[in-house]
């Protein structure tokens, strides 16, 4: 009782501060985060945790488009991440002796992931809920197994190693800049190979992605997604072309994952099928659910918490480190169960969801019952 009251007081205090202030504070903190390392307050390991966290923030932002906005559960999302990562790895590593330009690979990785999204989306989007989840899950596994077994192309379980660091400009351009008197220290920033450089690179991508997606969310496209999520029958009867809108959400989210995959491949230098297990898909789903479906600040927080928290615990566990690895998934599970019981709308929910989840009076229950009945009826309507 005392605890719940305390939490309530805490919430009422935090909610008095406008969201904008929180957003600015969070943004600034993320922007100056690497400086702690530069000034020597923080070991470089933390910076690396930051980079990977940001990659997962991108993934969650992408998954949120399809899951939070359009209401389609995708349990194979990591497959698009894999497509992006392998595209980059194969075209910028000693494997085939290629080194395609960074920007071209970034675009190509996103495009190929989008094509994968189109391929999986076209035949499956007429499925609903659980069925869609199962098909996407299978898709994720198929992609992973294909990568594992396509030895000549992907080196199978050994993965692709020695991925070249990205150059923001071509070597020729860098050389000519150097010739025209640019300082070496400045030009070094054009080759991304230090954690701090990766951090800012991914940070910029995250900011751009969040900006574009939040614009989309507040446009007619985003509203069409939301309408489909809320009531497909009413949505199509209001002029929304369901197939096109759903496909768009799947393809866009795949594109974001492809982009994240590309950056991840560059950063980690080595990629193997192990990074794209089904568990990873589940973790990204957890990030979205934990943070708050449909809420951009929410999924950002969710991703950071779920990605960084295990590292924090691992660090503080010290000698118990290996023990912790065993319990990691258990802790995840408990966390999600606790969330679903105590704060089902997520850490930083979209405004509307929060209201719904916490106002339960008998009339609402009756309405819910009624709308469940309607859903059944709607399915019949659509199937007939």
């Amino acid at each position: 009782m005392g605890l719940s009251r305390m939490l309530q007081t805490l919430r009422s205090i935090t909610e008095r501060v406008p969201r904008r202030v929180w957003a600015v504070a969070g943004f600034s903190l993320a922007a100056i985060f690497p400086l702690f390392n530069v000034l020597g307050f923080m070991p470089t390991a933390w910076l690396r945790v930051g980079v990977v966290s940001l990659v997962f923030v991108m993934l969650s932002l992408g998954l949120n488009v399809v899951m939070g906005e359009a209401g389609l559960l995708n349990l194979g999302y990591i497959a698009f991440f894999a497509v992006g990562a392998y595209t980059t790895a194969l075209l910028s590593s000693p494997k085939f002796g290629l080194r395609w330009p960074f920007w071209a690979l970034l675009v190509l990785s996103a495009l190929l992931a989008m094509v994968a999204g189109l391929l999986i989306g076209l035949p499956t989007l007429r499925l609903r809920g659980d069925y869609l989840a199962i098909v996407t899950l299978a898709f994720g596994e198929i992609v992973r197994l294909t990568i594992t077994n396509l030895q000549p192309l992907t080196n199978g379980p050994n993965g692709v190693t020695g991925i070249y660091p990205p150059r923001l400009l071509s070597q020729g351009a860098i050389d000519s800049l150097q010739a025209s008197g640019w300082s070496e220290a400045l030009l070094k920033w054009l080759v991304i190979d230090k954690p701090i450089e990766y951090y800012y690179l991914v940070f910029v991508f995250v900011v751009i992605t969040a900006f574009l997606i939040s614009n989309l969310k507040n446009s007619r496209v985003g509203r069409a997604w939301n309408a489909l999520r809320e009531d497909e029958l009413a949505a199509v009867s209001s002029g929304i072309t369901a197939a096109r809108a759903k496909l768009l959400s799947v393809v866009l989210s795949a594109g974001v994952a492809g982009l994240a995959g590309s950056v991840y491949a560059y950063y980690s230098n080595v990629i193997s099928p192990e990074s794209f297990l089904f568990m990873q898909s589940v973790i990204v789903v957890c990030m979205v659910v934990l943070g708050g479906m449909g809420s951009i600040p929410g999924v950002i927080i969710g991703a950071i918490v779920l990605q960084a928290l295990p590292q924090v615990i691992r660090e503080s566990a010290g000698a118990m480190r290996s023990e912790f690895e065993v319990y990691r998934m258990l802790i995840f599970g408990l966390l999600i169960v606790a969330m679903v019981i105590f704060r089902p709308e997520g850490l930083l929910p979209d405004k509307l969801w929060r209201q719904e989840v916490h106002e339960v009076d008998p009339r609402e229950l009756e309405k819910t019952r009624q709308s469940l009945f309607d859903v059944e009826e709607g399915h019949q309507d659509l199937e007939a």
Partner: protein
Amino acid sequence: MGNVLELQGMSMSFGGLKAVDNLSFSVRENEILSIIGPNGSGKTTTFNVISGLYEPDSGDILLQGESVAGLRPDQVHERGISRTFQSLRLFGNMTVLDNVLVGMHTRTKAGVVAAMLRLPSVRREEAAAKAKAQEVLAMFPGRFSGPRQSDPAFSLSYANRRRLEIARALASEPALLLLDEPVAGMNPMESREVMEQIKELRSRGYTILMIEHDMKVVEGVSDRVIAMDHGVKIAEGSYQEVATNHLVVEAYLGKRGAGTAS
């Protein structure tokens, strides 16, 4: 006055059941036509066929002279037919204003890339759409004023949710508005208010096809009435003509009941 909608010998069956059998009627411009009939007489099926949820087995549906039979619901909506549902279907977790804005989906054009970048053209369109949506909501004075527009739809009272559904349907300025039992579940006072609002829609130039069980409302607003039973049209005419038609009385009360009533 031309016909906005023309049904020509439309039939629809589910398995062996003929839900609608060779139904023909037309809706004239700027009139309110009501369809009455006992439960299971095929009224809602007729609506579902017109709005594109079902494809008719045979017959044709003409909207302003052009066939819309067999089109998808979103295409039918774009051509100018919008509807409400008997069992309220709002987007519960979206705001009141957003519900209406969804209704304008086919009347706005912003593409994905433009929307992502929030180009000036998108901003202009968005502002215009919002103004239009507020205008539509203002047709229900006092119901959706000010801050209420950013409330989620699920928080509205029952009657207001029915009103919002009508507002969403109106947002696209349809050539034909289909209302499926607009006053179902309302108390007499509320249904009187909605009745007045439906009449006002006619005075604003809308053409309305309505299914309704509340005979007071049917009598109060309809220019013409069609009665259906077992998928067949059994009577058509003014409310008085239809209400006194012996086939209609029979359909509602049964043969013996009709005998004692007349």
